[in-house]
């Protein structure tokens, strides 16, 4: 498999694909990626520089950190201030609160913050302390099964000092919102490979019915270029279908076991997306049987505040209206070292990806 990865980075194959795209792309096209890892891969491999001007790639709301509302992020700091041990993925460390704090800063000032690879590592941490241990449960369908497994495992073992911030979000509803957005003239979606590994291809039926292409693909240059060629062809023919170009990882039907773990712990509930607004059924909330694992309930946090950051255009960036470089703060007041908006904070954010590789 390792040598296989080389195959998907093959320079000659890439240049042939690019040449074919140039030949077939006779119209104008706008494609959106809705996965932070695609945003990073496109920036890292310089894909945009290989494409002609009539093919525009825009980033959508694919970074979970970027779309989590400020008041919910602030709630995490409120919990940390109450003395809880915070367990998190590394991406969350630098995310600023509205009062300028971050987990990184709190840790340097003595708060107990642990970075883990897996939500399940929280079990071990909780066993070694009497303190409350809070896992930062952020992510889409790909991460939600892992976070749900933590609640499942904790409940089975009767562990009481664990709770989870209910940040998980799901893709179909935000995709639906993008489809109905008349300002956004998209011809196709580069679909998130690993989200689809869980949801399956059926996630994209509405995309196809709306007259756009949907290609599920991996994260290597050959993968991305193949998906672009496929979308150009579908747009040219006016015949749209969901295609799985990532069959080495994604089964068309997704992962039913992962979905059932999500269903066991969560139900779908409306929630706020930063920069985008409230979307019905787009979040995952704990079922009554798992309510004791909801950190916001356990710590009785206030979820109030304003999401607007002056001068930050993250909302427009997340909806694909503008490119990060069109934000007046990009690269000047807002850099990865001192981020103003969430899209610059997370390495998967559109602004951070563009900054790093431009």
């Amino acid at each position, binding site marked *: 498999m390792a040598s296989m990865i080389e195959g998907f980075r093959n320079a000659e194959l890439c240049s042939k694909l690019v040449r074919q795209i140039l030949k077939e792309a006779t119209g104008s096209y706008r494609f959106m990626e809705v996965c932070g890892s695609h945003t990073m891969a496109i920036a890292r491999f310089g894909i945009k520089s290989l494409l002609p001007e009539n093919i525009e790639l825009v980033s959508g709301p694919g970074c979970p950190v970027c779309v989590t509302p400020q008041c919910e992020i602030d709630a995490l700091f409120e919990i940390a201030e109450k003395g809880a041990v915070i367990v998190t993925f590394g991406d969350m460390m630098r995310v600023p609160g509205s009062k300028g704090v971050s987990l990184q800063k709190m840790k340097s000032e003595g708060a107990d913050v642990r970075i883990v690879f897996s939500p399940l590592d929280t079990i071990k941490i909780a066993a070694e302390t009497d303190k409350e241990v809070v896992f930062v449960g952020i992510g889409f369908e790909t*991460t939600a099964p892992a976070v749900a497994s933590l609640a499942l495992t904790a409940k089975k073992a009767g562990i009481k000092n664990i709770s989870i911030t209910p940040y998980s979000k799901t893709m179909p509803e935000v995709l639906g919102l993008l489809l109905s957005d008349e300002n956004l003239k998209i011809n196709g979606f580069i679909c998130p490979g690993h989200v689809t590994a869980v949801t399956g291809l059926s996630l994209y039926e509405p995309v196809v019915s709306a007259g756009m292409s949907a290609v599920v693909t991996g994260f290597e240059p050959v993968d991305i270029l193949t998906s672009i060629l496929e979308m150009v062809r579908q747009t040219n023919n006016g015949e749209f279908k969901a295609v799985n*170009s990532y069959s080495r990882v994604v089964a068309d039907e997704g992962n039913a076991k992962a979905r059932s773990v999500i269903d066991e712990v969560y139900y779908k509930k409306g929630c706020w997306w930063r920069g985008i607004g409230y979307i019905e059924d787009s979040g995952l909330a704990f079922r009554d049987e798992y309510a004791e694992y909801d950190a916001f309930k356990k710590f009785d946090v206030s979820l109030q505040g304003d999401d607007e950051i002056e001068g930050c255009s993250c909302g427009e960036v997340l909806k694909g209206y503008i490119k990060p470089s069109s934000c007046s703060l990009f690269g000047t007041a807002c850099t990865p070292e001192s981020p103003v908006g969430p899209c610059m904070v997370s390495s998967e954010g559109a602004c951070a990806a563009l900054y790093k590789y431009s």
Partner: protein
Amino acid sequence: MCLGFPGQIVELEDIMATVDIAGTKREVSIMILPDEVVLGDWVMVHAGMAIAKMDPEEAQKTLQVLQEFADGLDD
């Protein structure tokens, strides 16, 4: 947290597996993996969980189709 890592299974015990991810050994849960796995299999790992079994044959097939397609293009 959305990054996925391909890893090869080097140890298996019940619902846990040790996988080799680019030379680093990690303990991952295979609790939500839909397919049976054996030592040597490749899995896609997300947030400490194997979410899908990877299929080297499919990878080979995809590359082959692409290569044939590319070879058929006139330069």
